[in-house]
């Protein structure tokens, strides 16, 4: 099947990048000033304890050996052990992944729910005050820090009006409704940040597509406005938008670091922040690696979506 082969080929080409990402992650340990071993061993460690830590971290072996050892353990799912809690990093991350992923997914959804209607409307009503307002608002939206919007939302909606919770997270399995309610504000805070850029992209792409000849053909066929815009227009406008969406999701993942703090959610982001204060290097590296891998997977998905939106890509 052509699609599977294409998927396979694209997946394989990601491998070198995965290795590079792994290398960079590994190299991050070595930018720690001074001696990681003494950091790990603690403030008042004895010389022996430091040596012990060095051996434990494998820092006494040559670089390549260290890297390969680390790589092999990563590939078998072992991201090391947290300095603070002693739990395996992999476990810590996976515990918190659903929260961060729910947040990211919710933010993406909100971003799209805003961007597509507003972008399409602005494109089909070029020059109108609605269009001009959209351009203005999106300029401002691109500039505002997502956490500021989050703070405002907490202030107004949660604290003043009290209709949505200000903090916390309820797992989906426990109570789907509370899960959704708890996600609305944080997703909004994060999602509004990308909605602005996405709206711009949708607007630009639609303006371009709507001026094409095949749109005139669609009109001449007597198709409904909805069909013309949504069926004929959006599919062709999708490629540049999806590309930007991939980049914005990467930004979202970064933004979780802050939004999780604001809304007191126990996700991967807040795990990383706490790890900084405890100098918990394995956790930090684990989070870095995991998020980079997620980004690469998303890039792959975006890549694959091209073949859906643009039939010419499938041949290549």
């Amino acid at each position, binding site marked *: 099947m052509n699609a599977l082969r294409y998927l396979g080929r694209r997946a394989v080409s990601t491998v*070198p*990048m995965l290795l*590079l*990402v792994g*290398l*960079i992650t590994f190299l*991050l*340990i070595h*930018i*720690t*000033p001074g001696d990681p071993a003494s950091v790990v061993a603690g403030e008042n460690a004895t010389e022996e304890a430091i040596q012990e830590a060095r051996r434990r971290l494998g820092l006494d072996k040559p670089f390549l050996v260290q890297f390969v050892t680390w790589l092999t353990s990563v590939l078998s799912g072992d991201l090391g052990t947290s300095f603070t809690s002693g739990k395996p990093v992999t476990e810590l991350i996976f515990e918190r992944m659903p929260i961060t992923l729910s947040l990211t997914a919710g933010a993406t959804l909100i971003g799209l729910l805003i961007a597509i209607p507003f972008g399409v409307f602005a494109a089909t009503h070029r020059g109108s005050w609605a269009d001009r307002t959209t*351009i203005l608002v999106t*300029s*401002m939206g*691109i*500039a*505002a*820090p997502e*956490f*500021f919007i989050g*703070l*405002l939302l*907490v*202030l107004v909606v949660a*604290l003043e009006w009290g209709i949505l919770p200000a903090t916390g997270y309820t797992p989906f399995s426990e109570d789907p409704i509370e899960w959704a309610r708890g996600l609305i504000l944080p997703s909004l805070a994060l999602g509004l940040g990308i909605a602005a850029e996405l709206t*711009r992209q949708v*607007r*630009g792409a639609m*303006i371009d597509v709507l001026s094409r000849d095949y749109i005139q053909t669609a009109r001449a066929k007597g198709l409904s406005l909805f069909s013309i815009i949504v069926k004929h227009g959006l599919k062709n406008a999708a490629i540049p938008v999806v590309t930007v969406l991939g980049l914005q999701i*990467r*930004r*979202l*993942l*970064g*933004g979780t*670091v*802050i939004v999780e*703090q*604001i809304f007191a959610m126990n996700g991967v*982001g807040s795990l*990383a*922040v706490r*790890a*900084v*204060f405890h*100098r*918990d*290097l394995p956790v*930090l*590296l684990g*989070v*870095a690696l995991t*998020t*980079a891998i997620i*980004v*690469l997977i998303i*890039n792959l998905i975006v890549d694959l979506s091209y073949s859906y939106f643009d039939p010419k890509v499938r041949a290549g």
Partner: protein
Amino acid sequence: MSVTTANTVAEANTLPPPSTFWKRFSRNPTAMVSLGILLLITLVAIFAPELAPHPPAKSSLRAVLKPPSSLYWLGTDDLGRDVASRLIYASRLSLVASVQALSIALVIGLPMGLVSGYVGGWTDTVITRINDAIMSFPALILAVVIVGMLGPSLTNAMTAIGIVYAPRIMRVVRGSTLSVREEVYVMAARATGCSDARIIIHHVLPNIVGPLLVQSTVLLGHALLAEAGLSFLGLGAQPPQASWGAMLGTAFPYMAQSPVPTIAAGLVISVTVLCFNLLGDGLRDSVGRARRSGE
């Protein structure tokens, strides 16, 4: 060189003569206003001691979390310090920090981009791949991790941000370098025995200035935002230092009782970043070859 090639030389430099540039730029009201606001903020930062109504570190336990009044224009924070004065002084830290981060990004990204674009071949491929790999990490997460390695402090935070944004500088520089490398006059220069260094200095660098200027302006805004984020989390400016982000972070827990400090800090950050973005847009229009899209 014939007349035609001489004209190509003149056209290829993306940065038009200063008079044209200024004429185009001054016609853009949004960009002009943004520049004005940024200059104003810079002046406030420079003349902070003269402008601030109160000493920023003076805490008054009787005046904790007070609302805005004629004495305390934006109220006080949880330690009884005047928010307005602190914001004014914090502008120094925030602006300097952004410039620091940008400088680091330039120091790393500019040479890499030049080498990658000019030398080409395997070097280019390797450097670009490394660049892409770094960009695979979400910016804020990579910054947090680097700060985790180096230890929380404002300088480390800005170093982290500089490293994180270096790839973007590299890309812009590489792109401009590539477009120049293929120009006829560069080959002509090489043919007449110009050394690589001379070519880079005389031909490549002028061509880079335009896009680099635009990207740097935008990155200043991003760096400010990132610094605010890191300081908000407590990973950047450490007390008693205060940047706008740090102020946002300390005001947040008391938002229910006293929302003004939070809103003020956030607003200041947003407006400044907005100005950087709009300025960048304006520069892009005034500098680049006529390439208008959408609007």
